[in-house]
């Protein structure tokens, strides 16, 4: 019997019990909608986080003190670790293929201007921040390239800190106090938003050498390197290791490439997306039990019809195929409804909660539909086998 006719007969049987079929398909729809919606959120979060991490560019390398693979804010310095110094940063800047270097030391301090004061992040950095971190200066200029030991007491404000301390007034040339030390404002950065809990706009950028003194630290927390787009990362890492080992005597630092960081993040976020998809699948499982129930009832109700079909010459395989197809069509149609519902819900959510990162992945949507069909197949197997095994004579007598 051609597949088209199998589908036709199965569809006819489902349409004979419209409401029952609709409600059963709805069970699958809810499951698929949950899978689509949750994976959309998972995928949205995935992309959002990766975008956050790549907003500073992708040709970046971070050197952290201590031989550790932990990434994030580097603060823990193992006892036998030599400090990562400003001179280390200058040495790294001379490596072939390195475009610019930013030494980083950070903390939190009271920033005062005129009669106002506010605790804000303090980034002790070098002059290459706009190039390396891809942040623009909107007013004035960034910290000049100066010798770290004799750098002048200049400060550049994040946009929010400028608003808080100066309101609408022009802060350029104004004096501020950071942790008690006096600085002159020479620039204001563009709005950049939050990154891993740090509000980059509620921050002040100071020369790294002065910031080390301010926080009474010996070591930088990080040195960020921007390298040429075509440069070999492996060669750069080898060169950085060679330079720093020759300066420190042994490998007491960790180099984290953007790719490593993104790979780790990507795998974590993949697990997250998979976990939410699994959560959604629980409701799909319930929908599958619904299909199983309805198909079991259908076989019982239509025992006489099965007997008739057998008398008319239908083979056991054809009977099994008919009932299996019914289950698959039921689940498949439910799945399509779920896809539409999930996507529609996603759009509504995007309107209601604009900040919620939500990205419908067609790969997950397709996987969701295939999953619905698989659930239909699994739920249809037992009833279909039961139908196929019926003795034709006994089945005919069932009426």
């Amino acid at each position, binding site marked *: 019997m051609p597949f088209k006719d199998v589908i036709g007969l199965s569809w*006819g049987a489902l349409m004979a019990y419209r409401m029952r079929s609709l409600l059963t398909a709805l069970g699958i729809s809810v499951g698929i909608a949950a899978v689509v919606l949750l994976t959309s959120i998972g995928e949205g979060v995935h992309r959002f986080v990766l975008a956050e991490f790549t907003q500073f560019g992708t040709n970046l390398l971070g050197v952290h003190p201590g031989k550790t693979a932990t990434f994030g804010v580097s603060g823990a310095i193992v006892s036998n670790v030599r400090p990562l110094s400003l001179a280390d940063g200058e040495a790294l800047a001379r490596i072939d293929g390195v475009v610019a270097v930013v030494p980083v030391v950070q903390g939190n301090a009271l920033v005062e201007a005129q009669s106002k004061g506010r605790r804000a992040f303090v980034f002790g950095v070098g002059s290459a921040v706009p190039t390396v971190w891809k942040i623009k200066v909107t007013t004035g200029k960034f910290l000049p390239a100066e010798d770290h030991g004799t750098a002048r007491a200049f400060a550049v404000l994040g946009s929010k800190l400028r608003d808080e301390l100066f309101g609408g007034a022009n802060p350029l040339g104004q004096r501020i106090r950071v942790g008690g030390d006096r600085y002159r404002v020479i620039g204001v950065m563009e709005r950049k938003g939050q990154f891993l809990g740090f509000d980059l706009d509620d921050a002040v950028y100071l020369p790294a050498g002065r910031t080390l003194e301010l926080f009474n630290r010996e070591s930088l927390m990080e040195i960020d390197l921007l390298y040429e787009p075509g440069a070999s990362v492996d060669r750069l890492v080898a060169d950085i290791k060679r330079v720093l080992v020759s300066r420190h005597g042994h490998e007491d630092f960790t180099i984290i490439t953007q790719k490593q960081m993104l790979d780790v993040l990507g795998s974590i976020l993949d697990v997250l997306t998979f976990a939410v998809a699994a959560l959604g699948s629980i409701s799909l499982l319930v929908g599958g039990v619904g299909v199983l129930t309805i198909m079991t009832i259908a076989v019982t109700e239509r025992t006489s019809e099965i007997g008739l079909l*057998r008398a*008319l*010459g239908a083979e056991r395989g054809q009977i099994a195929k008919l009932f299996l197809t019914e289950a698959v069509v039921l689940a498949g149609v439910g799945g399509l409804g779920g896809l539409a519902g999930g996507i529609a819900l996603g759009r509504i959510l995007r309107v209601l909660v604009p900040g919620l990162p939500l990205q419908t992945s067609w790969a997950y949507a397709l996987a969701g539909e295939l999953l619905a069909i698989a659930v239909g197949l699994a739920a249809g197997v037992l009833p279909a086998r039961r139908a196929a095994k019926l003795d034709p004579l006994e089945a005919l007598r069932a009426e």
Partner: protein
Amino acid sequence: MIRLQAIQRKFVVGDQTVYALNGVSLEVEHGEYLSIMGPSGSGKSTLLNIIGLLDHPTSGQYWLAGKDVTGLADEERAEIRREKIGFVFQLFHLVARLTAAGNVELPLTLAGLPRPEREERVRELLAAYGLTARARHLPGQLSGGERQRVAIARATVTRPEILLADEPTGNLDRSSGREIIELLESLNRQGLTLLLVTHDPQLGRRAARQVQMRDGRISGDGRGG
């Protein structure tokens, strides 16, 4: 055409063995019109089911069109039913959700015939049986006689060689019953082998050959009509 030899069919009910058929031997020629009569429980329906390959004999042998079909596998039996045998039941056994045309088309769909050919054959047959106006009606919208005519159309649409009718007029009034039996007889005159199971002696006597059954055995096999 049909040759049965020492067919036995027993059922075990609890600790009792019941012989529905006990040593039945029968030969039916191609194009014969044969009625099987007997009281309730005499084994006439069991005999028809075995001839129709819906049931297995416990012992004995069965040849159909010269081929031993006694021990055939399920799928081979289904193929023979599909190609050579048509069934007409007392309770019509129409699929309630399918129209008259849909019910008649069903065996052709199972046989895998292309849709245009199926529709052509169904149209021809419904016209021949005076059912054209009822083609799009559901079984529930048809009279008993019309339902049985649809069932006969379904049984003959595959152009089988044998038609097995088990009490085909049992659920019909006298007038509809006469129409149905005349339809079956006209099919027999066109060459179809017709085996008719009935408990109605008046109906049974219309057949060219009458087989009497009692207690699972053939108690009489005569020609009349």
